[in-house]
């Protein structure tokens, strides 16, 4: 590929994604490292790790069978439940927390682990499904002939394991970094602290910025320790690149287990997707004061009218950020896969998603709030820069995985035929990557729509719909809050929904 293009994309990545982090690291002095490992903070870290492990266990227990059953078996309704199963990942975890704690007496650390586990199980399900769909039919048929379904499943488990572990590692990274769910569940029940409380507390009153930055380091290291193996595992076992004579396996017949399997999958969808949405709809229509469809319609119409501007802001900024991110990510992902030693860049790509959002947000202020860049900092462009910086990593990882699966000889042949670097990228690389390109776009869009913790620090974020929603959740739980949550949810799932309705290819959102 054109070197100038690579350098431009690399510089953009360095400026948007790395500079805000590096600028904060320059504020750290040696003395700031004192008290980092005190008994108290280690205790908090230990509790957070336990919470992460418990929620990951829940995510695996739900996600692995759910992903396998829907991807590889003749369970009824699989085509409908497959896209529905992704919805919890798209939902802001706080939405799950507020609906479940309203319906059930869910309180304390176990409730938090449950909410986070349900929020992240689609990660495990997606990786398991991907691995399960890539087991060669001949191996499976041989196992079925020798010992039936049980033998086939025993043969497949080691092949599925890298997929399950990759999803589990990602689920763990999400869970240990979440602050909104423990904070909210603590606010309706007994208070318990997690390590994110320590980070937040230090940003609150610590005049020494370096000390506040240092507080985040243990959690950053834990997150990287989970994400780096995940990156490596995603190309192992059944997730490895398919060879040329791969034969797609036929759906496994479950026999008498077909309906129990359906009951399990349907229960997951009901519990994790339909339940929260139904609860929000119930509250939007009057809730415990008495639900009516008229009240529901009125709440939705009024909310749409009052919040239209904020919704439009969020949709436009998220869509623009996603549209800029995808071509940039394609160039970087291609470089990662095709340059010698390029894969060493992957851990660096992870940094913006591994550091706490508040640290990234404050780094962004420090980077852009200067006279020379005042117009950008004060205006709407700032929020685009922040979204790009925070979430560019997602399409890069998705696309680097997709580029890895492409045969480089095709590009070499095109080059010999005289095609230039841009043409090769357009005609050879991009077409087979379309599901990943759209998947990357969807990921940036969804995370940008949900972004609050870093964005709240830049001026333009005051005018996003998620900002409005979080403030209103705190002050009241009336019908308009529920209506607003439903509207946000609708727009979060809309791109994926449209793709699944009109496109023939499956959306690829996995790294």
């Amino acid at each position, binding site marked *: 590929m054109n070197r100038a293009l690579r350098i431009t994309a690399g510089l953009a990545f360095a400026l948007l994604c790395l500079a805000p982090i590096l600028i904060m690291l320059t504020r750290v002095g040696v003395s700031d490292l004192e008290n980092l490992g005190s008994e*108290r903070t280690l*205790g*908090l870290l230990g509790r957070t790790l336990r919470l992460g492990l418990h929620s990951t266990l829940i995510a695996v227990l739900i996600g692995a069978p759910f992903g396998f059953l829907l991807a590889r078996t003749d369970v009824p309704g699989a085509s409908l439940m497959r896209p529905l199963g992704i919805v919890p990942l798209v939902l802001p975890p706080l939405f799950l927390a507020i609906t479940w704690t309203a319906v059930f007496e869910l309180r304390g650390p176990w409730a938090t682990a449950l909410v986070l586990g349900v929020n992240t199980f689609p990660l495990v399900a997606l990786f398991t499904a991907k691995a399960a769909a890539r087991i060669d039919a001949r191996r499976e048929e041989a196992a079925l002939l020798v010992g039936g379904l049980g033998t086939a499943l025993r043969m497949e488990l080691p092949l599925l394991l890298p997929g399950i572990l990759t999803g589990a590692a990602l689920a763990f990274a999400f869970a240990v970094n979440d602050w*909104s769910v423990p*904070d909210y569940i*603590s*606010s*309706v029940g*007994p*208070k318990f*602290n997690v390590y994110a*409380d*320590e980070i*937040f*507390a230090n*940003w*609150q*009153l*610590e*005049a020494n*910025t370096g000390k506040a930055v240092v507080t985040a380091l243990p959690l950053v290291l834990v997150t990287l320790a989970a994400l780096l193996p995940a990156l490596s595992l995603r190309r192992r076992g059944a997730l490895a690149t398919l060879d040329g004579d791969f034969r797609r396996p036929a759906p496994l017949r479950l026999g008498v287990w077909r309906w129990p399997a359906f009951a399990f999958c349907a229960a997951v969808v009901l519990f994790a997707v339909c339940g929260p949405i139904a609860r929000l709809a119930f509250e939007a229509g009057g809730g415990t004061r008495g639900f009516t469809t008229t009240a529901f319609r009125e709440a939705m119409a009024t909310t749409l009218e009052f919040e239209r501007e904020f919704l439009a802001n969020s949709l436009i*900024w998220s869509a*623009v950020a996603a*549209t*800029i991110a995808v*071509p*940039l990510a394609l160039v970087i992902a291609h470089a990662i896969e095709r340059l010698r030693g390029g894969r060493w860049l992957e851990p660096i790509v992870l940094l913006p998603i591994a550091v706490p959002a508040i640290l990234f947000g*404050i780094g962004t*202020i*420090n980077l852009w*709030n*200067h*006279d020379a860049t*005042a*117009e*950008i*900092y*004060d*205006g*709407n*462009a*700032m929020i*685009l820069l922040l979204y790009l910086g925070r979430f560019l990593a997602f399409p890069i990882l998705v696309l680097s995985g997709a580029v890895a699966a492409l045969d480089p000889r095709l590009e070499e042949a095109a080059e010999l035929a005289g095609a*230039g670097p*841009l*043409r090769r*990228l*357009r005609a050879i690389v*991009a077409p087979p990557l379309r599901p990943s390109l759209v998947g990357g776009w969807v990921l940036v869009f969804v995370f940008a729509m949900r972004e*609050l913790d870093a964005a*709240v*620090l830049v*001026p*333009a974020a*005051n005018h996003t719909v998620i*900002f409005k929603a*979080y*403030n209103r959740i*705190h*002050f009241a739980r009336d019908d308009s809050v529920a209506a607003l949550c439903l509207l946000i949810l609708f727009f979060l799932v809309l791109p994926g929904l449209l793709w699944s309705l009109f496109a023939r290819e499956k959306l690829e959102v996995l790294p």
Partner: protein
Amino acid sequence: MQTPPLARVLLACSTIFLVATATSCGNDSSGAAGKHEVVLYCALDQVHAEPLIREFEERTGIDVRAEYDIEAHKTVGLVRRIREEQGRPRCDVFWNNEIAHTVSLANDGLLMPYDSPSAADIPEAFRDPERRWTGLAARARVFIVNTELMQGHERPSSMWDLLREEWKGNCGMARPLTGTTLTHVTALYSVIGEEQTLEYLRGIKDNEVNLTSGNATLMRQVREGQTAWGWTDTDDYWVAKSDGYPVDVVFPDADEDGIGTLFIPNTVSILANAPHPDTAKQLVDYILSAEVEERLAKSRSAQIPLHESLRTMEHPFDLESIKPMEVDYQVIGAEITARFAELKELFLD
């Protein structure tokens, strides 16, 4: 030569980005039109502040670019931004819903002195001697009690009642790590002394006092009957009372030897090197006016007016009968960071 499509995509993205930047520049009016605008960082709840700000805009024609915090951040976002932006301040006026962080910003030289004529009849205790900040519309630290759960019990009347065996595990307060509870506990250090404060805090842990994530949470627990009573702010109490819950308020330690009730005012200040100092002064004059304070007092948050001219106004609380705690807000602001570090060791575990 035909432009390759990918280049066109990149071109389109760059164009979109430039358009967005241009649009944002258009929105920003820190240039020539700057004299008709003011940037407000507002920690007061958006729902209460927004109508007042709109009215100011209508009266003066000045465009107020108000930026709010989310409640979960408890003013941390705005205060941190002010600190991080000090090299090139973009905020003109900071309307804080408490006082300690404001004093801390003043002590660090981030606020500009301004003696607003609107604050002439606000008591000196609520004004910075150097006029870098002025207090208005206070909340008080009170007990909210569930009247149904009080039957057969003597109502709590002193802060020390939290440590009584009778209420073990059945009374509460927010963790003293954020918001007004942190300010309150910091005030106790100077009012009753370090030793007694530590005794009190250890007693709170020993008596299994229900520690919540915020005052509103504690209020919700008391109104639902999950906890009998606890510390909260008057605005939270009044919301529960207005919604018809069986709750009542106690202004604690009101006897002759008692330390009285702590008032925590909102504070308004102008940033040092504010980009629009003239419009900032106009906005501060408006916020500090008796008219605004009266409206806040009559709102759902029932803020307690500080203007002498409003002492006799009709209010949900009998303002004349409340015994105020005598505190030096300068000391609270100066000590809060150090006390916070100690409190973290006790309560963030």
